[in-house]
């Protein structure tokens, strides 16, 4: 496999106030192939954002090797991070200018990705004039229009309402299927990971605990029961990954009722 991201024995620790150092990344090894959609799944504080910052080059204080090839890196943050004094168009221009994309290509790139996300009519709007979902979609356009080879995404949809998030997730998948960019997507939602990824790496306590390939054919539908089934497996593996022993249940096991099952189904979708 032709790897565009290679990480070997990556270690990083933060110094606490009392001078003790706390390891946030413990000897990570990772290889991501060109065109792969990888999800890194883990609870908050497990080090997944730190890993992404290292890959993006924002964080240079680490030990080990972290090598990213295969073109420019695009990054989608948890918040849109648009410049509030620029219009949608101005924000895209800022990114294009910063990445030194030739001016002659700007209008083509902007129109293309704005159209893909349904934002063509909002070019002259300021960030405060559009909804949170639209702002995040604009941030996605900004990340895509500089034509990155690799797209890093840090829980980009976790701040959005579920309906908006669903729509953008589908947008993202169709864009990915069209452009085949390498995507590393960090999330704490098992369901989201199962819907999006080719491969899921379960992370906790600064280390990868488990690797799972998602055996679901594309194109995928968000309501596919197979995704739910698989997300259940992932969560199960994830629970063991944390290292907690399963607590023996004293309550006699009953047949799961329909309502119970439905609740869990919903809970899984709502990132719980």
């Amino acid at each position: 496999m032709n790897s565009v991201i290679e990480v070997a024995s990556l270690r990083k620790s933060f110094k606490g106030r009392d001078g003790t150092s706390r390891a946030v990344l413990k000897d990570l090894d990772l290889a991501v192939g060109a065109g792969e959609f990888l999800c890194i799944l883990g609870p908050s504080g497990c080090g997944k954002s730190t890993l992404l910052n290292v890959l993006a080059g924002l964080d240079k204080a680490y030990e080990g090797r972290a090598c990213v090839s295969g073109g420019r890196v695009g990054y989608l943050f948890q918040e849109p991070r648009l410049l509030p004094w620029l219009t949608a168009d101005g924000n895209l221009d800022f990114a294009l200018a910063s990445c030194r994309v030739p001016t002659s290509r700007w209008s083509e790139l902007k129109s293309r990705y704005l159209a893909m996300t349904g934002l063509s009519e909002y070019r002259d709007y300021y960030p405060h004039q559009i909804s949170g979902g639209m702002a995040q979609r604009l941030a996605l356009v900004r990340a895509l229009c500089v034509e990155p080879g690799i797209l890093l995404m840090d829980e980009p949809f976790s701040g959005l309402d579920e309906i908006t998030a669903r729509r953008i997730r589908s947008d993202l998948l169709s864009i990915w299927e069209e452009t085949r960019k390498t995507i590393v997507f960090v999330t704490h939602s098992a369901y989201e990971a199962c819907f999006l990824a080719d491969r899921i790496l379960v992370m906790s306590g600064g280390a990868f605990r488990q690797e799972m390939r998602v055996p679901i054919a594309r194109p995928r539908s968000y309501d596919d029961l197979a995704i739910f089934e698989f997300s259940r497996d992932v969560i199960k593996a994830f629970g063991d990954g944390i290292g907690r022993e399963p607590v023996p249940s004293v309550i006699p096991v009953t047949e799961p009722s329909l309502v119970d099952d439905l609740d869990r189904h919903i809970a899984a979708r709502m990132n719980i």
Partner: protein
Amino acid sequence: MLKLLSLATAVIVWGLLSLTLPPEIFPGPIETARALWGDIAGGQVGLDLAMTLLRVVAGLVLALILGVPVGIVMGLNRRAEAVLDVWVMIGLTVPSLCYAIMAFMWFGLNEGAAIIAIAVTAAPSITINIWEGVKNVDTKLVAMARVFEASRPAIVRRVLLPQIFPYVMASARFGLGIIWKITVLVELIGRPNGVGFKLFYWYQLADMRQVLAWTLLFTIIMLLIELLILKPIEQRIFAWRPQVAV
């Protein structure tokens, strides 16, 4: 509308209060306005007003030149903050009268000394404002710009300065408020013309009508500057900001 009403109330309160003392000591609005009109018609106002405004503007520009860079450096660099913190506090504590006396003693009784005294007095307050502003800069936006490979100068110019600019604008506005008060004081002790000089002159002649007339004149001028120049500039520059409903 509410503003006009409030202004009218202020004038009425002034009129009512002035009735409690003899008019030579506390003239009312009508008498003051009449005295002011007499001065304007007599052509004695122009030079003094122009000189004062010149000192105010020159002082403000110099104060911004001194205060803004120091504030930015203090906001960006922790070591600079630790070193300059005390300086700013000292600068802020020394009374403006001391600066004025020192400037006139060291540089002579001239225009340059007056403007230096004005600027040095106002600069520390401007520095503090900018310093706070730079500390409030959204570093998440800086990280975003770095991800998009923006160069350092581009980050400063397109991400940091637009965030600092509102604070520069605010310090210019409130700096103006401080500066015109210092200017009048500086003129009183060391200049042969200007509004401050005139105020002191009429005070020595115990002519309260003229003292209030000059005060009124300058208040009107400053209000006009605020309403006709600074507010529109601010509104144009910050058109992107969401309107806050009050």
